[in-house]
């Protein structure tokens, strides 16, 4: 493993890891010992010696049998102990890496990047528990056996060593490029299929009513054909490898038997003739099992590599070195000459100001940089140039949390935690009472929805927002915002996905509270509450005179 995040976490647990590996090696050696001594036992017995001379092999057979079982138990507990500890470190590190980067530092597909990081952690756990451990243990035990074999039986040990190298290194390496290509192709088609499924799920009514389900099914069939092609490549390689494992064991036994025949003709003790071949079979069974997991571990290994590129992502903003006193009761915000360049200029000399009582509607076509401006104003992102002030205090001198005490940002897709409705709203202010939470929900036009909850505020929400529509999620986000009681609120498309009537109620309350509101929107109906209308065009904010919708 490269010197990455997982490797470093593993090194912190080096002693426990060595212990676990030792236990694994012990199991391997006991397995081989059991095979070797039982082979020795029966051939020796066939020589019909005095019963007493069988005591040693008989004792060893029983010893190895018990050692193998006990070793397995030790190995499982030790390995899992290490994996659990290492994964606790890894999780903590990944969370710490992600914290400064969201929401503005990971580009437009931020949620996908974060989601991938979460799944990569699961992959890393798999890699440690079911690939790395068994592989190291079986390689170690195999090599020790091959060496012992070599010392006692000469060429038979060499044959076993060659077969082990083939199983543990050569065949996995052979499959690696082809499998990686197949995995990449699968990922690409999978991404397209998930887009198609998302399309179908969001626009299902129009697909169903527009007679467009057939073209959709045809598109899916095309994508499935791509998946099939990649899967077929994968399958061929896997089948080849599995066949090779078996063939290697067969070839090795032939070679070992020939070597034994040679050794026997040169005076090898007949009691040992069965030992090398049985040892070889057991060692190769074990190696094939471990190598099989290795062959499939391409995606997991790629996953552990990604943490480090995530860690190397530059932070979108840093707090000033010294902390100045907090600002009291800020209620106005002014930004000018804001410039943000991300490959291309996104904001050039953007300026905007907000005062208590304002409801400024910020329009602009999608992708023009409205959310970027919001990120700058909520101090998630440091602009490349520009001056922003909170009640006259420059942003540069304030820490991000000092700004966010006063500036709220209601995201377009707020996250719903796998917790109760109450806990989800209380994210904004943990000490809030139930009454305050209820009021916040009511203010966000969720009273009817709240009334329908089976267990009231204690009703659990699903992990990934299951059970809530996008509109409901955005309103829960607003309820959080109301609970946080900040005087400057930036709301990103709060009425998206709401029917006109609900939208009107949501906007009504937003305009009513004693706060400066920046409403990002591209919907005409949101203009009803605007005290001012601005549009973001080519990186600049321009005032718009109100005009009736077309």
């Amino acid at each position, binding site marked *: 493993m490269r010197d990455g995040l997982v490797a470093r976490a593993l090194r912190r647990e080096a002693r426990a890891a060595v212990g676990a590996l030792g236990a694994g090696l012990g199991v391997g050696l006991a397995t081989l010992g059991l095979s070797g001594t039982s082979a020795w036992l029966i051939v020796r017995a066939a020589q019909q010696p005095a019963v007493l001379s069988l005591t040693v092999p008989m004792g060893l057979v029983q010893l190895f049998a018990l050692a193998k079982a006990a070793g397995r138990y030790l190995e499982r507990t030790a390995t899992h102990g290490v994996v659990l500890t290492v994964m606790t470190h890894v999780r903590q590190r990944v969370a710490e890496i992600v914290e400064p980067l969201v929401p503005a530092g990971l580009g437009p597909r931020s949620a996908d990047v974060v989601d991938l990081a979460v799944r990569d952690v699961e992959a890393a756990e798999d890699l440690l528990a079911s690939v790395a451990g068994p592989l190291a243990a079986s390689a170690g035990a195999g090599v020790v056996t091959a060496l012992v074999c070599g010392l006692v039986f000469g060429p038979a040990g060499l044959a076993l060593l060659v077969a082990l190298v083939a199983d543990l290194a050569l065949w996995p390496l052979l499959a690696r490029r082809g499998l990686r290509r197949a995995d990449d192709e699968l990922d690409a088609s999978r991404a397209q299929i998930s887009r198609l499924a998302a399309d179908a799920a969001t626009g299902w009514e129009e697909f169903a009513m527009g007679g467009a389900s057939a073209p959709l099914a045809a598109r899916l069939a095309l994508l499935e054909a791509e*998946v099939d092609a990649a899967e077929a490549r994968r399958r061929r390689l896997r089948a080849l490898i599995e066949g090779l494992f*078996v063939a290697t064991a067969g070839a090795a036994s032939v070679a070992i038997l020939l070597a034994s025949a040679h050794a026997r003709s040169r005076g090898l003790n007949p009691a040992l003739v069965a030992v090398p071949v049985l040892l070889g079979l057991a060692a190769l069974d074990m190696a094939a099992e471990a190598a099989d997991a290795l062959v499939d571990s391409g995606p997991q290994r790629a996953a552990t590599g990604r943490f480090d590129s995530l860690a190397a992502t530059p932070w979108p903003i840093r707090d000033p070195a010294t902390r100045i006193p907090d600002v009291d009761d800020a209620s106005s915000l002014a930004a000018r000459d804001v410039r943000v360049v991300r490959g291309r200029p996104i904001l050039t000399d953007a300026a905007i100001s907000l005062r208590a009582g304002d409801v400024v509607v910020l329009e602009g076509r999608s992708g023009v940089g409205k959310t970027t401006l919001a990120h700058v104003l909520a101090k998630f992102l440091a602009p490349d140039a520009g001056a922003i002030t909170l009640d006259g205090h420059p942003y540069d001198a304030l820490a991000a949390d000092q700004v966010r005490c006063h500036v709220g940002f209601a995201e377009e897709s707020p996250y719903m935690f796998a917790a109760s409705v109450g806990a989800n709203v209380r994210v904004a202010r943990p000490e809030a009472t139930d009454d305050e939470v209820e009021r916040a929900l009511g203010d966000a036009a969720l009273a009817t929805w709240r009334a329908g909850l089976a267990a009231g505020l204690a009703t659990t929400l699903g992990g990934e927002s299951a059970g809530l529509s996008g509109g409901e999620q955005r309103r829960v986000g607003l309820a959080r915002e109301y609970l946080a009681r900040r005087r400057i609120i930036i709301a990103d498309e709060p009425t998206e996905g709401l029917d006109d009537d609900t939208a009107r109620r949501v906007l009504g309350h937003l305009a009513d509270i004693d706060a400066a509101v920046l409403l990002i929107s591209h919907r005409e109906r949101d203009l009803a509450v605007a005290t001012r209308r601005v549009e973001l065009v080519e990186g600049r904010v321009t005032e718009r005179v109100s005009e009736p919708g077309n």
Partner: protein
Amino acid sequence: MSDSPTDLLRRLARVTPLAWGPVVVATATSAIATIALLAQATAIARVVGGLFASRHADLRAAIVDLALASLVRALATAAGAMIAGRLAAPVRRDLRRRVLEATLARGPRCSIDATVQLATRGVEAIEAYLTRYVTALAASVVGPAILVTWLVTRDWLSGVIVALCVALLPIFMALLGAEAKAKMLAGWQEQQRLAGYFGDVVRGMATLKAFNRSRDALNSLERVGRRVRETTMATLRVAFLSSFALELLSSLATALVALFLGVRLLHGGLALSNAVAILIVTPEVFLPLRRVAAAYHASATGVAATEDVLDLLVNDLRGLDAPSISPGVALGDVAVAPGGLLLVTGASGIGKSTLLRQLCTLEDPPEGKVHIDGIDLAHLDRDQWRSRVAWLAQDPRVTGSSLREAVTLGDPSVGDDEVRAALTLVGLGEDLDRPVGEGARALSAGERRRLGLARCLMRHPLVLVLDEPLAHLDPRGADELASVIANLSMTRVVASHRPLRADAVLDLKGHA
């Protein structure tokens, strides 16, 4: 998880009989591979016997046999992996297609995310469950059965020892295992909860930051992680007794077989080659059992996904035939004759859109609320009815890059003349190549609606359902479009704030 993995396979096979394919293939190929394994063991034993007795004469033949048997076993193993995988692919295709169909028929089951997950990772987890777990399961039945039978015929004592150890396995598991299994599950769930908590914190980090709560969350993640580690280890220490049992029984079987073989060899009651073959075969009985235990853990996601997918794929019953000429429509007490226009009015949020969606079966209409030619809509065949109705949403989604593509939905077989006629009729001009922009941003809301109407008309529906077609149009445009709608010949149901010449009017008040 209520079902055992085998029950689940049966349920899966009821939905898609193709699921049996991998099972049959895995059974057949693992039988062949097992028999080849027996040939390998016998050949090796012959060589060892020959070497022992210094009879070198038949060594060559035995080694050739060994090579052949190895080749057959390698081929059978490779072919098994290959064919089982190929047979599982149609299961994946079939299930994914049906997940899509179910989504289009009834909408996403819970969230859009969950539907996407089900169609991608869920369906693939089922495929992996079939190719990995189910084949391992088949091999774990066939392999040991053949091997134990062979052992019993070769040497009944060894056969009985091995059979006893295999039979003890479930008893052992049941005795110490009942608790171990529960603990294993508990440990696993605890881990899942921690992983879930971690995922929640990381995915929701932006939200936490917006409320200055991210530091708190990082601290509690560390605390929870440490606590979960302690409790999980405590449960796993008990849970791993089951792998101790499996290992102990398999190594005990080998040791006992070796000891009893040794004793009989000592007294000359057994040929050495026979004993060597038995000794080689004994541990192979337990290998497939170990593999299936390992695969079970890996298949857990597949099992969960299978349940989700099966829940989604409830078969719809076919309903009555939908009419084939424009029908009369009755919404509650208000009816309109074939070819007429029914106007639905009422305040915002009173349920006009819902009523229209029910008419389109996008939501299930309550029994007795909507009648088509006197037949309750709830009894009509849904797919057929939908194919004969066109629906214009309040904010139609537009796909494609030009007007032509947007109207034809990319179907190249539609003639330009027809497209042009429809566009002209709704007042969008004659320029088929006019770009609509990404997400139709080059079009105004009014134009998107006109485009949606053109798209509806292209389908020659028997019933046209329009939700606020005149909103966001300037007065002149609205009048023009109103007269276009008024002059159409099929039955129309229109929800509108603006007045429209209608044959019947349903004015919704209070609870509709």
